[in-house]
């Protein structure tokens, strides 16, 4: 069981379900996101339902200059921080993402912002010689496809970053877990055509909160996405480039 967990990007449906699953284990929480009104609602709900301490504070993934100060205030509120879940992300619109300003924002949130804040977490846990970092990446990062390659490449970069971080922190006893959800029933996917095998946020959240107690370093959710992505990765590029994906 974890003592105190920081959730970055705590207002998304997956983050909310993850926070609930941690709270159900009796874990204290620090919820961070841009929308403070929404954070206040989620925090109140978790306190009432699970009787755990829930702090919350403003966090903007793109405002990298503010991250150090932000992380200090998290530690001030929860000196026994034992884990971090990076749950923020920005899908954007692939059509519009051809415009570099939009593409840059997708990269800034999903990759640059993530690296900035996780560097701080990594240094802290490395010194404490304990803790875990869970990064929510995406199956979209496993292979570039025309439908969302800007988002996919940012998430793919995040997956590589987490892989390297895992390697670095292993001797220090710090777990780094990469989570790759497939389709999840959230605001990001609501109403999109062509979805299949859609998982609930509750399922995904429960599996994420269980991940620190299990041995897997890379967790596909649900599990069968590992094999779907394996097949997709095995398609030779000379064929893949002709496909409409």
């Amino acid at each position, binding site marked *: 069981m974890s003592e105190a967990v920081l959730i970055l990007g705590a*207002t*998304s*449906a997956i983050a909310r379900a993850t926070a609930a699953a941690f709270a159900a284990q009796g874990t204290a929480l620090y919820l961070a996101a841009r*929308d403070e*009104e*929404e954070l206040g*609602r*989620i925090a*109140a*709900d978790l306190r*009432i*339902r699970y009787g755990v301490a829930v702090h919350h504070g403003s966090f903007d993934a793109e405002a990298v200059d503010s991250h150090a100060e932000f992380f200090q205030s998290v530690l001030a509120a929860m000196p026994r921080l034992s884990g971090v879940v990076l749950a923020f992300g920005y899908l954007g619109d692939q059509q519009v993402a051809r415009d570099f300003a939009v593409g840059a924002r997708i990269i800034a949130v999903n990759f640059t912002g993530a690296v900035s804040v996780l560097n701080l977490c990594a240094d802290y846990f490395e010194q404490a010689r304990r803790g875990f970092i869970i990064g929510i990446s995406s199956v979209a990062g496993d292979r570039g496809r025309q439908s969302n390659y800007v988002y996919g490449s940012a998430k793919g970069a995040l997956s590589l970053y987490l892989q390297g971080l895992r390697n670095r922190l292993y001797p220090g006893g710090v777990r780094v877990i990469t989570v790759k959800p497939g389709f999840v029933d*959230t*605001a990001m996917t*609501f*109403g*999109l055509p062509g979805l299949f095998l859609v998982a609930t946020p509750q399922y995904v959240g429960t599996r994420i909160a269980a991940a620190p107690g299990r041995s897997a370093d890379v967790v596909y959710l649900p599990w069968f996405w590992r094999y779907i992505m394996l097949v997709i990765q095995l398609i030779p590029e000379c064929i893949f480039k002709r496909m409409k994906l």
Partner: protein
Amino acid sequence: MAVSITKLGGWGRYPVQSCELERPERYRDLRPSSARLIVRGQGRSYGDAALNENGRVLLTERINRLLDFDMEQGVLHAEAGVTLADLLEIIVPHGWFLPVTPGTKFVSLGGCVAADVHGKNHHRDGSFGKHVLGLELILASGERIWCSPAENSEQFWATVGGMGLTGIIGEVQLKLQPVANAWMSVRHRAASNLERLFELLQDPQLDDHYAVAWLDSLATGKGLGRGIAMFAHHAEAGEVPAGLLPAGAGRGWDLPFDLPRWVMNRQSISAFNDRYYRRQAAKREPFFSGHDAYFYPLDSIGHWNRLYGKHGFVQYQCVLPEASAHDGIAQLLEALARSGPASFLAVLKRLGAEGSGLLSFPLAGYTLALDLPVRDHELFALLDALDEIVIRHGGRVYLAKDARLSAQSFRAMYPGYEQWLRVKNSIDPENKFSSSLSRRLEIGSGA
């Protein structure tokens, strides 16, 4: 915000219509995003109250946070999308229970307000709206106002029972009732005919906090209206014998597919009713029952609405004023026995004084509820004939169950409509909030 166009039905799965769904996850996104908009909580109204053919349906299932729970005073403040099932999990261990509960806990808090639902304690405690301390209403203009019996009281009483047509109910503050434990003390009394059943429900010696009667709608002649009156109260501390295991919750089983139509026929239902009557009548001694088994027996069967086959069913629930109830209900049962399809579920209940909700259903008298499978159009002709009987006796039909009432009958049944319409016009002059039900009943357009 993304929308999804889907075929949607109510709990009765009649009618099924194409609606545009929107599902906000943040409270700030709970707003009138388009015209022709209706909110849907858990979709447990039976007919078309939470449908919007070629319009938009705003789902509140993710706007379901508990915001405050005062365990001393028993006051709960939550977002409207939370279900009663969720609330019970939190409040019962702290010694509180819902002030009023309908027959399923898989309904949203906002839905309970919008339909001003009643329970088996209506004759004592009134309907749901009576226990609502206040609510946040999101108006057509986007403005958010707090409404209570003291503040914006006109809007409050137009929203309680207002079927979601005055605005979006965002948050609700509810007064709970204290309970000593999770047990109900229950007594059954059998009645061999309708006359006897009315006597039992009126008997002050027998009356209890909760009272309801199951009725064998297929019994005819001398046995017309035979049934079981069921009385109960929350067990007091010390009333429950030691050694009684904690009342279990949770689902029994799920009906994974539609039953073929022929399964639910007159013979099978009659056989079931006969067996049920004998078994329940045999329970002469008081017994203890958990909350779930007592209040929500059908919740233990997931998707029990599939019993009626893929064509769905309608629930006909009406109330008749005290003075004319016996005569009127006998007429309804006779009309049903003469030409109607077999009704699987028939419930009779005494209701207490009318509340203040301008479109609320309950009034002092007796309410009868019948589940009727949709097979052909003869059913609708029969129900029109039942409406005539109800109107003649000064009663009304429950809109949360309704799928087929006419605009004209609605006006004859709901005398509070004109006053309600004045409030509606003052806060939603363009009739932005409308549903398939409101258009069928011509609510909000003309007098």
